[in-house]
């Protein structure tokens, strides 16, 4: 029995960290909800299974020292933990995105040849 095709995008393993890092690099400090909303907006359809999936990526990046979290007030005076990219994080974006482009390019070429 064929299952109904999912509208959600399946992420390649490890790409979520790069996506979050890149988003923070372009958007500036952001809380998890803001990040999730922004990613859904960019992807034009639900990117993730649910917004909670972001948290493991955030803790991974924070432990690597690429982002740093701090509690602040939102515009609506709510408490939220804002994540900002660090210097190491900015350097990591450069190296990680280059690696990503190389990989994507390779996959692209392979697909072109196959088709």
């Amino acid at each position, binding site marked *: 029995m064929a299952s109904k095709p999912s509208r959600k995008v399946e992420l390649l393993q490890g790409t979520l960290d790069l996506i979050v890092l890149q988003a923070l690099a372009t958007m500036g400090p952001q*809380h*998890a*909800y*803001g990040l999730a*909303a922004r990613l859904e907006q960019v992807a034009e359809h639900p990117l993730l*299974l*649910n*917004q*909670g*999936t972001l*948290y*493991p*990526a955030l*803790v*991974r990046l924070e*432990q*690597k*020292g*690429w982002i740093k979290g701090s509690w602040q007030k*939102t515009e*609506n005076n*709510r*408490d*939220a*933990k804002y994540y900002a990219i660090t210097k*190491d994080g900015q350097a*990591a974006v450069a190296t990680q995105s280059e690696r990503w482009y190389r990989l994507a390019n390779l996959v692209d070429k392979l697909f072109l040849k196959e088709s």
Partner: protein
Amino acid sequence: MARLRRLLLRLVHAVRPSHAEAEVQRELAAHLALLEDDFQRKGMTPSDARTAARKTLGGADQIRLAHRDARAFRWMDELRVDLRDALRTLVRHRRSTAIAVLVLTMAGAVNAVTLGVADAVLFRSLPYRDPSSIRVLQMRSAKTGQRYTRVPENLLALLGTPHEAFSAVGVLDDGPRITIATADGPRGVATASATATYFEVLGVRPYRGRLLSQQDVVGRTALLSHDAWLTYFGGGESIVGQSVTLGNTPLDVAGVLPPGLFLPAIFGAKPAVITLAPAPKSTGKGGVFYPVVRLAHGISVERAQAALDSLALAGLPEADTRDVLPVLDPPETVLFRAGRPIMQALMLASLVFLVLASVNLASLLLVRNRDRARDVAVRLALGASRTRIIRPLFFELITTSVAGAGSAVLVAKLVFPSLLKQVPGVAYGSAPVGIDLRVALITLGLGLVTTLVFSFLPTWHGVMRDAQPLVLTGAGSHSGRGWKLGRPLVAVQVALTVLLVFGATVTGRAFVDLLQTPLGFDPQQVARLSVGWAPGPNFQEQSMRLLTTISRLPDVSAAGAASQMPFDGSAPDDGLRGTGGARVGIRYVLPGFFEAARIPIVRGRTLTPEDAQSDPDAAVLSASAARVLFGDRDPLGGTFDNGRGRTFHVVGVSSDILQGIGDDSPAQALAIPGRDLRRLTLLVRLRTNRDSSLRSLEQAVKSASPTTRTTASWWTDGIFNVTDYRNPRFQTTVLSVLSAVALLLTAFGIVGVVGFLVASRTRELAIRAAIGATGSSLIAMVIRQGLAPVGVGLVIGLLATRWAARLAEAQLFKVDTTGFSAIIATAAVVLAAALVSTYLPSRRAGRLNPADVLRVD
């Protein structure tokens, strides 16, 4: 760098999770609040907005788990929880935990102490380079296989020339003791002499300076032991290469030997000073003791032995090789000749004890885990993996085991010095013994392995076997299954105990036989005085005067003296060959010796003080000596000579006097020494066995001869401390203590398991009581069922004693394991202990009130 940082943070979070957990909770709550605000702004009611927010965020528990996995290590987290649970269980059951730790401490300490000695004797490699290439040369009798330590000097000379099978040959010889003055009085320092090649064979490197060389001065150039260097020269660096004087002996110190070195020889294994010895000569007629050879590279022991045989046959006179041929033995056979079998047997006994303790622990856990099956069943039904279930149980045992083994090492370390005093020196020779890190780690490892194999596996098996039917059927009772597991545990404990009790019985019986061996003299209530005066021309007269003074003392019933005492291990002063080549030893005694030692005179008369004056060549023969020298002829009035110009005439015949246990040719001639007297021990028979008598004896000698130093001791102390007695006594004591504790442990094990049987079958027993079974019939039923595995264990154990008997005969001192008396005694002791320990818990079955039990159910 980023990865390392993350790894460290994950480890920190795994150990201290509480802060991060609160943080993520707060963050999720904030996230939900933001989502709710947003949904409400889009027109949802607060309640719809809350539902939608939760849906969008996802399950909070899953997020928290995913967050925990990312920030820490889940397995470490689970490990921490399981460990905490295990510790809580141990604290909750603190009484059974304490018993378990005590049992393991006991077994572990026995193991550690045994290993403290056995490690040096059995396992540790010798302190030489490539010890497997070193062999000690001895002579072997072609007929009996017996080893002789004296090797002809000319054979050594043959080996000293370059040879394809041997790369080097070295000789060590005993040296004279150097007397030095210390604050505590004069002290003898052991010396030896070695050829320049000796340390080359052993592959020993000098600790300071250099080793001996051929160009050095024989008897003068010397190596110091590490201890001697520290004790007599304060570890001074400048001593090396200098000429010094130790006592009155001048030495040129070439170097210092490494610490802890001991040499493959019985005498002089740890000499303080080793001087250069001359190389063996091919014309030499003498002999050397314990020469060592190093096999050439790539030469097997068999090839080297064959080369040695042909060398001896070709190079030695035929007379020298007719009875004996040289043999290459591993250094251990010289270093630990008696020690290896003793330690192997004791190591085996302590391992049996350790396994017994672990099985005992399993039966203890069986009782403690009675309620665990239900908990495990619930967790299995909820989908918990076997690993999650196994881990708390595993940790409980590991923690108990580590606590037991750890305290065992501490106990062993504390008691080792005093226990070592009981171990006969022959068991470990000169090897360094003690509880070091290596022994501690092996004890810990052995404790863990035996606990895991013999406690954890059966306990786990039992818990799972009880839990699975509960999962499948939901049945509430699991009464019979625990008992099924308890039965083999009891059987194994009984079998192991039978082995230990059997060992104790046969060694104990052999020791009692040994104590009852007729010695030919009576050492009870006899004081032995070693007199410290220098022999001179009037030595005999002086001694006789002293004996006369002593014999007049009120406490003294007889006083005599001898140059050598039975059981002191010394060779006779003189000797001669009788008919058929049998040897008769001549020992010198002063009149009064026979009376003091209570040696019966069977014919003729004893030696008297008058003999010393007017008949100095009078002699008394032992019954064996009379047979050897005179056959069927009457020995009284007969004569014999010592081959050096002195002719004795026989005035009496005494009963045989044993010179040591196993002495099968006690042929002795006892004669007055005259000028041949070189040393003397006084024997004084006292009317009391009070120690104060010894002191007054010493005082009497001192007032009779003020310049004489003397110490008095009981003759029995000296005799029963010789290896012949110490060895069996030590083995008997160890095995008796082990088997007594094993009996106690097994009894506890049976009490626990049978108690478990009664507790888990209370309902069934109550029904039986309700339909008319009497209390005594219920007790009988429980005892019957309890004794069934005891019977199985008894049979297995008794069968195993046949194997143990072979081992005991091969490894222990002379024990007789044939005959059924030892087996019957063993079975009776174990069965009696089992009966009592089955009866005690079974009494509960007889006291059951069915109404109470069934009402509760």
